[in-house]
């Protein structure tokens, strides 16, 4: 027992020693067995004293009596918890480094219609936010371009890798559309009149329809071999055919209604992103079977009269209505690592705890169409998982180990490096009254 503990300590320490500059994990070369842990499979049973075995990046066995191969690296978890990697379903990690600094922003291409641009192409694998995000269990992100009406194509990324190609799990995952504002604003920050806003909206909606209709015509021309190249129309192919999803950012009731109607007309499948007013249109969402990525649950209520808990209760209300949803953080890349805590707060407001976890794992994977690879701990799926001291929905828990495709993930970050640097300063000065844990 004692030797095992020692072994475990050495293993962890060595990780830190050799990866302090966050070197991507080496390809899994031998089987790894995490034993004696509480294994939360999400889609199957939770094993309270279980083992999970993975080999060549894939999960090969889970259970309480798993036969561990002789060559396997065995890690005793001492009652810690194992979860599938969490998914940040609306991510900017890798696309934006420092919001205020223009040169570090690669999320918005100019122009209103950019169906051809690809999110994964401008992801910087050495960005500082990648290590801090994965250190909280978010091993996968759904990275979405922003801006305009059609922002571009999204991709699912693994939060480790030497290149963006290493990191890409799925691309294109979907087409990101910002639904035009269906109301007018009189805010002093809006520089156009209400009439101008209305006209602008009508123009945008016509252009959006045209994009889809032109793309269909373009495909026909192409079949007959007479289409001159149009990258934008060409890139629409998987979206007009319904092979791939539309992620429509829509918060207001009128936006959601219009977007769902549009998808119905076009015969394509959409996901509502944002979904602030989703509770007012649950019947429609249910009827049309539209899932929602709730990215506004940590926001203030949009209306003064609304319940102060309105946003916190969104997940429970969608759950009660039988609408599939995920919980995410949008537009704030440095806060994505806190998404699980927001899901935890939704639990405090009535959402069953296992549903909160599902919203960050299997349900997110299903919404993104990647559930055959990730989102749960099942034999055959990617060994993308993490070990936690407790419930990841609780702020006070901590992630102790993580694996992506069976590769060991370095959990250090710029933050831990600076922490260690300055602890050293205070140790040297002799002013540190208490050690950090």
């Amino acid at each position: 027992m004692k030797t095992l503990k020692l072994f475990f300590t050495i293993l962890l320490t060595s990780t830190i020693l050799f990866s302090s500059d966050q070197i991507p994990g080496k390809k899994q070369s031998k089987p790894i067995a995490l034993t004696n842990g509480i294994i939360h499979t999400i889609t199957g049973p939770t094993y309270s004293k279980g083992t999970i075995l993975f080999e060549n990046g894939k999960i090969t066995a889970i259970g309480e009596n798993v036969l561990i191969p002789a060559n396997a690296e065995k890690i005793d978890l001492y009652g810690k918890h194992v979860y599938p990697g969490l998914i940040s379903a609306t991510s900017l990690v890798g696309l934006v480094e420092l919001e205020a600094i223009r040169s570090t922003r690669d999320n918005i291409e100019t122009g209103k219609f950019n169906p051809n641009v690809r999110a994964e192409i401008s992801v910087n694998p050495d960005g500082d936010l990648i290590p801090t995000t994965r250190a909280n269990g978010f091993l996968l992100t759904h990275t979405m371009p922003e801006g305009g009406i059609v922002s571009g194509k999204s991709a699912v990324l693994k939060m480790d890798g030497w290149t963006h190609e290493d990191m890409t799990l799925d691309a294109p995952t979907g087409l990101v559309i910002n639904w035009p504002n269906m109301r007018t604003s009189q805010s002093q920050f809006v520089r156009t009149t209400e009439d101008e806003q209305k006209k602008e909206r009508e123009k945008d909606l016509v252009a959006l329809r045209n994009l889809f209709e032109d793309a269909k015509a373009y495909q026909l021309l192409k079949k007959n071999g007479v289409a001159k190249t149009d990258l934008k129309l060409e890139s629409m192919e998987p979206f007009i055919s319904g092979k791939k999803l539309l992620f429509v950012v829509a918060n207001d009731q009128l936006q959601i209604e219009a977007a769902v109607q549009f998808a119905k007309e076009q015969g394509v499948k959409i996901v509502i992103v944002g979904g602030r007013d989703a509770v007012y249109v649950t019947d429609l969402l249910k009827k049309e079977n539209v899932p929602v990525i709730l990215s506004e649950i940590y926001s203030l209520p949009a209306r003064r009269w609304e319940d102060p808990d309105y946003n916190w209760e969104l997940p429970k209300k969608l759950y009660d209505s039988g609408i599939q949803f995920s919980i995410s953080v949008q537009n704030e890349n440095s806060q994505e690592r806190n998404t699980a805590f927001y899901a935890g707060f939704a639990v405090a407001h009535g959402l069953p705890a296992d549903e909160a976890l599902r919203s960050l794992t299997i349900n997110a994977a299903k919404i993104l169409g990647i559930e055959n690879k990730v989102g749960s701990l099942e034999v055959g799926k990617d060994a993308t998982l993490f070990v936690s001291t407790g419930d990841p929905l609780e702020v006070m828990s901590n992630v102790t180990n993580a694996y992506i495709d069976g590769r060991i993930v370095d959990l250090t970050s710029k933050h831990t490096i600076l922490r260690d640097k300055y602890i050293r300063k205070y140790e040297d000065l002799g002013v540190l009254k208490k050690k950090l844990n």
Partner: protein
Amino acid sequence: MRNILTFMFACCWLYNSSAQTFPVEGIRSNQPGIHALTNLTIIISPTKRIDKGTILISDGVIREVDENVTIPVNARKWDCTGLTAYAGFIDASNDYGQPKRPQPTPGGGSQFMMQQSQPVVPRGSLYWNNGIRPEFSASENFMPDKDAAEKLRALGFTSVNSSPISGLIKGTSAVVNLGEGNTHSQILNSNVFQHISFDREPMSQGYPNSLMGIISIVRQTLLDGEWYSKAQAAYKKNSTQQKQEENSSLAALDPSLTNKQKVVFEANDELNLLRAGSLAKEFALSYILRGNGFEYRRIAAIKELNVPIILPINFPDAPNVETPQLALNVELDDLRHWDFAPENPLKLKNANINFAFTTSQLKDVSKFRENVNLAVSRGLKKEDALASLTTIPAELLGIQNLVGTIEIGKIANLVLTNGDYFTEKTKIRETWIAGKRYEVKAAPKIDPRGTWSVQLGNSIDTLSFEITGEVESPAVTISHNKIKVKPTITKTDASTLILSFSGDSLNMKGVVRLTVNVEKNTFAGNGELGDGTQIFCTGILKNAFVEKPDTTKPKLVEKSSFEIVYPEGAFGYSKPPEQPEFVLFKNATVWTSEDAGVLQNTDLLLEEGKIKKIEKNIPAPKNAIVIDATGKHITPGLIDCHSHAAISDGVNESGQAITSEVRIADVINSDDMSIYRQLAGGLTSANLLHGSANAIGGQNQIIKLRWSLLPEDLKIKEAKSGIKFALGENPKQSNWGDMNTTRYPQTRMGVEQIIRDEFRAAQDYKLAKANSAKNPNLIPVRTDLELEALEEILDGKRLVHAHSYRQDEILMLVRVSDDFNFRIATFQHVLEGYKIAEELEKHKIGASCFSDWWAYKYEVVDAIPYAGTIMNNVGVNVSFNSDSNEMARRMNLEAAKAVRYGGMSEVDALNLITINPAKQLQLENKIGSLKVGKDADVAMWSASPLSTTAICEQTWIDGRKYYDRKNDDQLKIEVAKQRTELVQKVLRTKKSPTSTPTPPTLPRRSYSYDCDGEIGVGGTR
């Protein structure tokens, strides 16, 4: 006999005086000036009337008012049978006849990004800031406006206190008549009031660009005005010293400062009325308020000001609720305001507040009368409404001897109606202004209604014309045998009817046109048939029209549906929470934030707002409210050491690099929904800080979240005042865009120097004051509010809270504080404080930081979530703050991050949001922990407060329950119920359901700010 004498005297006066200085151009015009208006109903005053009498006017003055008046032979007689005379109405303040303000560009711009302090070009001897223009004279700038005068006369107005439009201190008003002709003769009185407005000036120089900046500059100007008189006097006595500056703006303030002239404060919501009241009190000004229609929301507090109100009657349009989707965005307080607004005058009257109606603030002036009548239908007495239009404004303006009633010797300003003014159908026929008649709408000379027998052209057949409807808008039906035709009518004047109709069915080809002149019993006319034939027509009245008794049911008047709550709107309380003598929480897990740590199965007793006992098994005192807290956790009420909630109209006075004169205390917004939302998260106190646009920003205010109370009552009175400093990117305008690259400072080097410069100036200022106190012959030192604040810092009376990011700038300010020997209470944000924790510890400076914010601008690249724990472990007093109205609702989870990052103990982590911020604000003897004798501010949680599963169930402040989740559930039901009811009421009441009114523009009541300024608006406004 007496009458005749008076009259003769008047005639003499008429011929013996020349009232104008203007030379005559061309032929003189002297219209007869003696008029006798007979057979009138005369409403002499709101309480006195003559049912049938005569008014005799000469030379623009009323000479006789009586039942029997001897009419001089040279008078022009006006038979006014059927008419009622009221004294001409007076508008105590509107912008009639004043030069229009240049229009700002549509949409404006972000206050933070666009409005920059521009270099000031001095203009003559005027004040340096173009918002300050007390020297502006409405009288000098007055120009009669024919169209506007006609519109106002059509409502019954004959005089207006023409008031300046632009500026903050706007200048003086002048009472004018609404007549036409010579400008000079319209002016009754100049220099009436000085006008001060808290509305943001669209043409300002950049400073001030916030409400608190506006209040500050008004305060500073009034101080300057006081100083100016003293300085002038001192210089007169002793001219062997440097002369004070010449300043005609300040000179113009003297009458107001010495109570010779009243000040009108123009306020656009109920809280601004109270702010105006406090400022007026500060300077002992004699004042009047220009209200806004929201007075009902805080009527008791407004009553206490004990001043009259010039009251706009600007009732909002019904909100657009045609579809459920549109209704979704209509706020409950907008619906309620629509419901309450017409009763605002009645509520003021019932509170014994004197008010005069004004047309100002009305988007459509022609709606004035409709609104007055609406107020009357909702309970305001007619005589009170009339007084608000006549005697009250006359008295306010000090011209009650000239106008306001129909009495001998007063100016002949009259309104003549065909009935009761406060009845919808009544028409205003004419107004008389200074004895000159202005027609509004003449009565028809003849009533054409009835059944006429008509002969048309050569036709043998007799037609029948049935004329019905209103006298002024009759309807005609032409019938022959059983055929009926309804012609189109254009009526040119009282006795002419112009008709056209299709003659086919009457055997006349094509469209027939007729012009008919109606006389008493006959009419005659001519016209043309469809084939071009000219025809004559004649008619004989067979049966005169008989007015049918009005059988239409009186319109159902719906009174307001609900009671007023505080603050008005959703989640308001009908009264402040009570303070029970004893409150006993039984059997809780008590987090004391004291050495005792966390106590299990413990009771907590509150007595009259203080913590009385924390022990196991406390017996319940008599009458105690006992709360079973088994399984619950109780913590001290949480404290947010960096908040921008509950601030009205601008958190950043960004117009200058130093704004130490502005005060958050002036602009506390007790209506901000954030207060309620944050109470729901266990927060009880907040340090409301100015923004970070300036190296030295404004003064902060610490409040308790006493939802439902007034701004003044939110303040923690014992709290030591403080001030916001800001270092780094924000004061040097790094992220303000390419337009903002020249204001000093643009570097961290400059930030240091401007701070040092200001402290040196404050030292000089202090010396100068001391010197001046010793030498009464010298011109006194001008009180400079900016430097006063700095002096208070140097004297240890004001705490410094310094917004900071990088270690270099933090260290810089530490050294400045060393050099000037003042203490910094906290560094705020202090993201790199962990890099120089030993300095903070040594100087006993608190660190008030974010738990884990980073990566949003360059100066946060090295921010780490371990910072709080590291500083704590070096011995620095650390607190976690929100700087966000959203995050302030869940401070407990922020504290939990210190456990996650660095393994702080849970007890220490909770202290980050309880006792530690209390110490930083020097309030640790009052709030921040559960200790006998301290304020009874507690939060009760469903689980361990650091768990995400914890929900705050109750929040108590001063032993009063300001939030209760169970009560909240009731309020939610109430909100839903009221919304449904009022939406239905709107749909019922609205005249035409197809119209799409624009949403009402209401003052914004909730703002959301972070340090950088406004980041969005709570609610849809």
